[in-house]
Every structure is written in structure tokens, then in C-alpha cells.
């Protein structure tokens, strides 16, 4: 049973044409798989490795460096909610925001809510410091977040 869906395999093959070396498609391939499956499973790593003519260890080496990719043991929820914890946000209340979110969602950073909707994470500077404290909702910025409850409700409505 293949872990990679045929359209993902096709996309990876087309990306190989854009780069001078197959290994360069590692990161794009990992993104493709995680965006769809919310994690990169062990079998997916094996299949990506085969497509890129690398060992599974080489793929996993890159994957684990970033701390961004999840394994099938703790996949991402529908919404990865990352709270910036770098200096500019810390100076403007990121800690309180995070604590409120922890309380509201009932999970610690790194964990996913029971309904599989939110994965709460801490982020290093996400580059929206003019609107500190800020969060990322998957990969979209939300500035000036002071009301944790409203944030959660808005996200639930939108996604």
C-alpha cells in the first residue's frame, strides 16, 4: 500500500525537473506530503527516498533538522497555531497570550486538541513584529492578537 498518493508522486517528479540535483526536491516533497497528510509517515519517507535516489536516512536527516515536520505519531491538527515567542512579541505580552491559549485549548505547546483541530506551537520570530503579539494560523499571519478567545472562535469559523 503506497503512502504517497499518485498526484503527489507526479508533483514530485515534475519538481525534479526544476532542480539540478534530485536531493533538492527533499524539502518541497516533505512539504507536499505534510500539507496534505498533516504528517510525514515512515513509509512516506521510504517512498520519497526511492523517488529521489537517496536513503531513507538522508531524507529523515533533513526532515528532523527543521522540527517542522511531524511523524505519524503526532500529526498536525487542521490548524497549526503557532505563537511567536521572540523578543518583540515577548515584550508585548506573548507569554500571557500563550498561557491563555494553553488554558483555552487545554493543550501544552507541541500537542493537538482532542478534536484534532488545533495544534498549538511556539514559533521563533515570525516577522510580524509591527503587530506584536502575533500568531501564525498555518502560514497566515494574524497581528495584534490580544483576545485569545476571539482568535480561536474566528479560526474555527474560517477553517
Amino acid at each position, binding site marked *: 500500500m503506497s503512502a504517497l498518493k499518485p498526484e503527489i508522486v507526479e508533483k514530485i517528479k515534475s519538481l525534479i525537473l526544476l532542480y539540478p540535483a*534530485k536531493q533538492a526536491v527533499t524539502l518541497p516533497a516533505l512539504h507536499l506530503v505534510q500539507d496534505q497528510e498533516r504528517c510525514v509517515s*515512515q513509509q512516506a*519517507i*521510504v517512498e520519497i527516498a526511492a523517488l529521489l*535516489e*537517496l*536513503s*531513507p*536516512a*538522508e531524507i*529523515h*536527516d533533513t526532515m*528532523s*533538522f*527543521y*522540527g517542522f515536520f511531524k511523524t505519524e505519531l503526532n500529526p498536525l491538527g487542521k490548524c497549526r497555531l503557532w505563537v511567536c515567542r521572540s523578543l518583540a512579541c515577548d515584550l508585548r505580552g506573548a507569554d500571557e497570550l500563550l498561557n491563555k491559549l494553553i488554558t483555552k485549548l487545554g493543550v501544552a505547546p507541541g500537542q493537538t486538541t482532542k478534536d484534532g483541530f488545533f495544534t498549538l506551537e511556539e514559533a521563533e520570530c515570525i516577522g510580524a513584529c509591527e503587530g506584536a503579539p502575533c500568531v501564525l494560523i498555518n502560514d497566515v499571519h494574524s497581528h495584534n492578537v490580544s483576545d485569545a478567545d476571539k482568535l480561536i472562535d474566528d479560526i474555527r469559523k474560517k477553517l
Partner: protein
Amino acid sequence: MATVYINDKAVDIGDKKLNLVQAAELAGVTIPHYCYHPALSVVASCRMCLVEVGEKKPDGTVVMQPRVIPACQTPAKDNTVIQTATAKSKSAQAQTLESILLNHPLDCPVCDKAGECKLQDYSYNYGNSESRMVDDKNTPPNKPDLGNNISLFTDRCIMCSRCVRFTREISGTAELHVINRGSHAEIDIFPTEPLNNKLASNVVDLCPVGALASKDFLYTHRVWNLKTQDSVCAGCSTGCSIHLDTNKNVVYRLRPRENPNAQGYFMCDDGRLGYHYVNSSNRISKPNLKSDSGADISSWKDIMLSLRSELKAVASKNASGVAAMLSPFLTVEEGFLLATFIKSISPKAKLVLGPVPVVGEDDHYPKTRGSVPVNVKFTIRNEKCPNKKGIEEVIKHFEGEVVLISDYLNKNSPDALFIAAGYQGEEVSWFDNNLLSQFKKIKLLITQDLFPSALTDASKYVIPSAAFSEKEGTFVNYAGLAQELHWACVPLKQVRTDGQVYLDLLERKGLLQASNIRDEISKSIPYFSRLAGGKLGSDGIHLVNLA
């Protein structure tokens, strides 16, 4: 002609392309290093080799660079100046060591590497005795089953990445990788691909600390009690140079010995781990002569006398009825002495070559997963014996041609056959049933071997062979490189080395001295003329010019 100045001492490095670590070695100065290895790519990540580097200007003044620089990534050029013991260099070295030890468990009392550990050695020479670290150390879990023979003590790892580079650049199998980042980085395998390639255990030698361990050796012996002897592996015709580590006549470990003439820096696991038969209690431990009266004789003196006279008797009735099988595991000296003895019994006696074990194809490394061809860096040869070339040349000299034992027995029926087997190994029989039944047809069978078998049961004379770790002599590998073996163990119980037995049969006095025999051979067999003088040096001598 380039001159490099190391700690104010001038060294001529000729036109060699060296980095500063290598240049310093020429001057007898050690620049401590972990991640650098001559067989692997340079990463300069351990920062242990940081030294002050400068240049001597034409007017004699020396200009040193303001920063310390890694010696391993710096090419040695004419007028390069290196200072390894200035305050700046020493401070850099001490800092690197303090940093490495911040998270180190300091469990030398239970660590295999103690006694041959670069962390111990460099800490002693270049580091501080106390650490300023009072916070909790990282304690990543150990990985006892990285591979069939490899354990990883993760908390001892200093992240030099030699092991990872080895599996990517030398074996090409790329099983090892780094996971996570920063101070949480660890070495690991991917679950579906454990570290089991045939060169795997080289990472244990490469590891400068006790992180990677060979399960075969783990906790068996302290290294400072081991005696080390230079020798040659008897596993295949690659003929890797090795170190034999023994204590009290027990072989504990084989390690590759660096030899630019031979295999370089590494050896395969089959050879490395395939020594246990040497210590086996199943070995034939004394000679035996089946007597008609039923009481077997075990005295060497009596057996030698009887053997000589029986063979002479056979030869007097039938000059070409005596034959000897020389196995490709005999040393050159042993082959020569046995051939000389047999020919002294009868000039018409026949010398033939024993079965040459061949398994599969030559195994080339690094492996690739893609279509890009790479240079071969290591080969495990399919010819699983160390001295076919040497023995063939001996036989050619005496017989003019080389005939295999099975072919010979298909066409001939000798009255007596001296089987100098000595095949190194316990697992697999070197003869099959066909050959055995051919042997059994021969009236007088003399078998010299390591382990009892159906053949020794059927032989009138059974003479024990010695293991390669008990011999001194010469092996010639596939490329014609002659290397010296040195004995590390005294043969057990009543075993004598094969060479000693032949010397005794020839009634030559004294103990076998390989260098004397080599000199003798060089004078009588042209192929071995370069053995003159008897000393081959630690890197061996090519008997023929390489193409």
C-alpha cells in the same frame, strides 16, 4: 619544494598536497583533531584543531593571522607558519574540550574506549581537569541496536560526524544520519535500514570516543591489557593489513591497520569478526597416527619419523605415487618448505593446488542508489583465501603448471596424498562429498587441518594446522603485494605451526624464522626475488610492478 614552519621548526613538505595537520605530523607535532580523517571529506566542525597560522614574508618577518584557524581545512603552502602551543592556540584547544565535556557522561570506568580514547588523551594533554558546568547534562537515550554489531552510547557522542560521512562516502549505504539540531542532535539510523552493511564496524574505529561500540568486543577486555601485533587478514585476497589484539594467547579483536599499499584504512566485517574459530575449543590440538595395533600414536617425534619413512617407502615403489595438496591458505614460506620436502621424497612427486573458495562476486564500495558512477574505494573480493597467488607461484616454480586437486584426482590415483589444508574457518567445510570420496580412495592420507572432519576421520595421519594469528610468514594478495604476518599467539596445546612441521620434516634444525626463509626463496624463485633480505616493512612490497 615547500617549507613549512611548525612551532619554529622548519619542515620540507616537498610537493605533497597536505593540510596543516599532516604537515605538523611530518615535524613530529600532533595537532589534536576529531572530525578530520584522511579518507573522509573535510568538515572542520569539531574545532579541536584550531591553531595560529601565519606566513613568513620574504624579509623574514612572520605575520600571524588574528584569528585561530582549523588546521585540517588549511593547505600547507611554502612559508606557512603554524604555532600550536601559543596562549591563543592552547586556549582554543582547552575551550573546545571544555565545550565537548559539558554534556559528556564521564563514564570512563564503564566505557570500552578507555585507554584508546581521543577524548581522554586530548583532555589530558590539552584540556582542564575541572569543568565549570553545574547545570544538568543532556541525557539522550542510548541505542544498543544500531546494527547487528553496533551499539551507540548516544550521550558520549561528540558529533564529529565521521560515522555519518563514512556511510555516505565509503560504504555508500548512507544508513547513519543526524537527527534534530543544536545540542539535541544525535546520530541515528532509519528504522527500516539498520547499520548492517559489510563495512559497518569501521565506524567503531573511526569514532574517536566510546560512543560507537562493537558488540563483538563490548565489555570483553580492557585495551591496556591487550598486546597488539601487526599482521594480515586471512579472509580474502584483498589482504587487509590488520592489528591483532590478543592477551594470553586468546584473540580478542582485529582492527584494520593503515596501509597505502594495501587496502587503505578499513576492513570488512567478515574479516574483522571472523576470528572466533581461532579460539575455538574444537580445534585439533595434537597430531595423531592411526596405528594398526589400535593404540593411536600422538608423539610428534614418532609421527614425524613414521611419516617420513612411509612416504619414502611409497615413493620407492612408485616415484610419481606421492602427491601433496597445497591450500591457498598456506604462507609462501610454508608452501615452499612443503614443496621442497615433497620433492625431496621424490622428484616426480606432484604438487597441486587445493580448492579455492569463491563466494559470489567482488563486492565494490561505495554503493550508489542513483545512476552516478563513483570511484571504487573498497572491494571485498570473492576469492575467500589470502594467498592463492603466492601458492600458485610456488607450485608453478616446482611443477611448471598449476593443477587443481579435483582435476588431478580425476585423472590420477596417487598412493599417498599429503593434504596441507589449514583452511581458516570453522563454519563451512572446504571440501564437498565428491572430493571427500576421491580422497577416501587414496591408501595413505595425511591431513593437516584446523578442525576435525570426515576427512580427518578417514586419514591415517592427522596433523594440526595453526591459525594465521599463530604464524609468521608472507601472504601475497590479488595484486601481488607481499605482506608480513607476525604471530600474536602461541599455538595451543600440542599444535605446531605448519611451517615448523615442514622444517622438522626436512630435518632442518631450529625454529622457523620467516625472514631467513624469504631470503632463501628470493634466491630460488624469480617471482619472489623482491623478498631478498627477508624484511618487507609494515606496508609490504609489490612483487611485480603495478600497471
